């Protein structure tokens, strides 16, 4: 529903309810709150990283209804009611790393780790629709994200390894 355009203020708060990693969470946020900031500041899920804040670096990538999106280019109020997966949702309940996370650790798919949450979520989504991706498929899926440490070679290797781990041990 739309508010009365003349009596509403940009400071008005909106109740946003989302299911994050299977848990229903809510926050009262101004309209201009980016999804990345709602996750980090309001819900205290600081695994989602904010790099460039204009859609170039991909560090803030999360899954919205299973599809990867840039959370810094999405207003929280626009995804009210949606299902979201963040990097916190990739580990098991006891904190044990998921197959994608283990593969990145094994293959040195990260150094400083800043970009890693985005790459982990892209990889998770890629493997969910393509369990044995070809190298060019991997590059196409991950090509929109930036890593300044690894030179990407080990990231691609990590994705291949994650595919193996996922096949060995289906979650």
């Amino acid at each position: 529903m739309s508010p009365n355009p003349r009596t509403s203020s940009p400071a008005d708060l909106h109740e946003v309810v989302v299911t994050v990693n299977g848990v229903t969470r809510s926050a009262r946020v101004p309209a201009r709150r980016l999804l990345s900031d709602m996750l980090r500041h309001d819900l205290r899920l600081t695994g989602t990283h904010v790099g460039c804040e204009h859609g170039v670096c991909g560090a803030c990538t999360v899954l919205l209804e299973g599809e990867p999106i840039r959370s810094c280019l999405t207003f929280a109020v626009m995804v009210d009611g949606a299902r979201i997966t963040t990097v916190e949702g990739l580990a098991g309940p006891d904190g044990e790393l998921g197959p994608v996370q283990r593969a990145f650790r094994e293959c040195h798919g990260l150094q400083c780790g800043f970009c890693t949450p985005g790459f982990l979520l892209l990889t998770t989504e890629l493997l969910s629709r393509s369990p044995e991706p070809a190298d060019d498929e991997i590059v196409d899926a991950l090509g929109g994200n930036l890593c300044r440490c690894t030179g990407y070679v080990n990231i691609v290797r990590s994705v291949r390894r994650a595919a193996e781990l996922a096949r060995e041990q289906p979650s």
Partner: protein
Amino acid sequence: MKPPPFVYHRPASVEEATRLLAELRDEAKIVAGGQSLVPLLNFRLAAPAHLVDINGITGLDRLGWADGAVEVGATVRHSRLLREREVAAAHPLLVEATGWIAHPVIRNRGTVCGSLAHADPAAELPAVLALLDGGVEAVSWRGGSQASRRVPAAELFAGPLQTTLEVDELVVAAYFPTLAAGTGWAVEELARRHGDYALAGIVLTVTVDGEGKPTSGRAAYLSCAPTPVVVDIGPALGGGGGGAGSATVYDLVASSLDPTDDIHATAVYRRHLAATLTVRALDRALSRARTGTQPPQPELAAVSDAMAAPTAASSDGGAER
């Protein structure tokens, strides 16, 4: 940076949305995918007092085939064009061009109509719309009732990020005419990094007769001018096309375009690039036209079914997963 404050509106119908736009005029911006608008807000290059989110409007996610054109509703995202087989069959050119847009993650949110209304001269879809003489349907609320008009591509693009749409108009659908039999097509572009805006890009169609001789051809260019530029390459085809005729095509294109220098490329390089891409695109398009590799037109029934599919299912990405 953080976006400037704004009042958020989520109308539930086109009527509600257009009434809002009629009241708010240039204080409001429409948001669908936000993949171009939100960066502008985060950079504080735009600071609209109101944002009108059209994602809550049912019926704007139509994707189908009407009157010889693929109709794309205002909330249809790029990724859906790439996913639905009916669209690939009905309009392979549109689908190939869409595949050049940014990265998959951006295509998951960005919308076709949003790209057209944003009118970035470096974007693919405005060039496709211009090449095909397509258009958009714009609705507004005027004098107590809803008004609607069809704006052809030739009248739509006014400059960089500028259209001739009025501030109270909402684009509800875009129409991309499909290709006739015997017509081949190609998309070519060059960017420094995969997924970046192209230094120059081309969308081209060429039609051949029963003997495989080209009879007409058109090309539309992106990143070469403030708006998409359409060039009739017919005069340079001379019955040969490609091979021997390619020098003429190069010259025709190079003399038709007047790009400018910027930080990404010089005008001279851009002109050369656009002409070279044209020669390449023409080769591919001719071979597609001659071998008839463009998929046949879809059967009306099949696509009508796609159009009639419940909109709720297709608007909810989660339902397909």
